[in-house]
């Protein structure tokens, strides 16, 4: 009996892409596991999985078009969709191990010590060509705009896609706005010099000099989540008056925060305003 024919990594990648798309991924890409030099040591693929060769990135599960145009901000704040992409990531990790025969590590969506992600999904998505960085921060896919991402580190040396050649940000509409108004939609909505999180400019058709206040962004994205809970609890513990403490702990802000925490992973992202006004992906999220 002859030995089975060697299966090429190209063929394995094709199988993986087909399975991922069939399972719900909108975009699939592969990054080189050794290309994560921008990540802190201890938070690179090889730190999580010995002999890591590549990182498979899946993107999808964006909010629906209807979510984006609801005037009730609490709706989108309550009904995150990132949990769907995590389910997909676990499924593809099983596929790599069971069907392709290589180690596969699903990168958990939570945080490791020091509130650092186990692996930067933004960096992984960028290195896998699933989108490009934006002035507002999130990785933007040229067709879909903002997506949620999941990553699987594997010992399979899959062919690497590498970063996108073209950046989706700034969009042509943003370049036009910069010419006429000296600002762009995301910065206009959340300006760092006027109580917001974002700053930057357009130079030579590209975004430049970006500024980002992550601490303030936390107050908006994790408004009613663990950071908000910690702030509320701190206030309650520092209040000597029993009746005042009751007002805090039974009040609507603290109560909504506790509800949000019980929704867990489906309720973490609570601010979308810089992405709501972003023209990248607007056609995809425009319906009749």
């Amino acid at each position, binding site marked *: 009996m002859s030995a089975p024919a060697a299966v090429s990594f190209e063929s394995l990648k094709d199988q993986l892409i087909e399975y991922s798309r069939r399972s719900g991924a909108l975009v699939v890409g592969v990054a080189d596991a050794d290309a994560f030099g*921008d990540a802190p040591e201890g938070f690179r693929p090889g730190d999580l999985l010995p002999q890591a060769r590549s990182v498979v990135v899946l993107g999808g599960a964006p909010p629906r078009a209807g979510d984006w145009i609801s005037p009730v901000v609490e709706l989108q704040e309550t009904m995150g969709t990132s949990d769907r992409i995590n389910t997909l990531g676990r499924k593809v990790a099983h596929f790599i191990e069971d069907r392709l025969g290589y180690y596969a590590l699903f990168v958990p969506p939570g945080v490791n010590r020091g509130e650092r992600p186990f692996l930067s999904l933004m960096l992984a998505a960028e290195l896998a060509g699933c989108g490009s960085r934006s002035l507002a921060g999130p990785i933007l896919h040229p067709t879909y705009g903002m997506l949620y991402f999941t990553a699987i580190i594997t010992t399979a040396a899959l062919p690497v896609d590498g*970063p996108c050649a073209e950046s989706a940000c700034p969009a042509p509409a943003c370049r036009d706005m910069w010419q006429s108004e000296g600002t762009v939609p995301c910065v206009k909505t959340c300006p760092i010099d006027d109580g917001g999180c974002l700053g930057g400019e357009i130079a030579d058709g590209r975004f430049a000099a970006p500024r980002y206040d*992550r*601490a303030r962004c936390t107050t908006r994205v994790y408004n009613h989540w663990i950071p908000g809970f910690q702030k509320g609890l701190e206030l309650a513990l520092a209040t000597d008056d029993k009746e005042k403490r009751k007002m805090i702990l039974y009040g609507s802000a603290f109560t909504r925060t506790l509800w949000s925490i019980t929704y867990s992973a489906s309720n973490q992202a609570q601010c979308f305003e810089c992405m709501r006004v972003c023209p990248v992906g607007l056609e995809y999220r425009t319906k009749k």
Partner: protein
Amino acid sequence: MTFSYLDPEIYKKYRDAVIELSNSIQVDINEHLPPGQRRRGLSDREIAERLQLDEATVTEIRAIAERDYYDLAEWDRAIEFKRKACREYVENRIGLKRKKP
């Protein structure tokens, strides 16, 4: 990880330096440069070497400082910001008008 906690005096002494050296407030990170050529915030280990602290202390200072940076009023402002921004977007894009009181 335990619930032993950082000396508040150590925290106060190094808070600003740790925040500045980390990725907490990102200024002029040239995002359009290829990976590997960007200026990034230092890792906790790198900050520890620079400030002559141990890495675990830096991690703890950074985690606390990121939460401590804004007071509770900023959380309240966040709620109003989101409601206003969302409503304005829908009004401008979809033409939804506010109901008269």
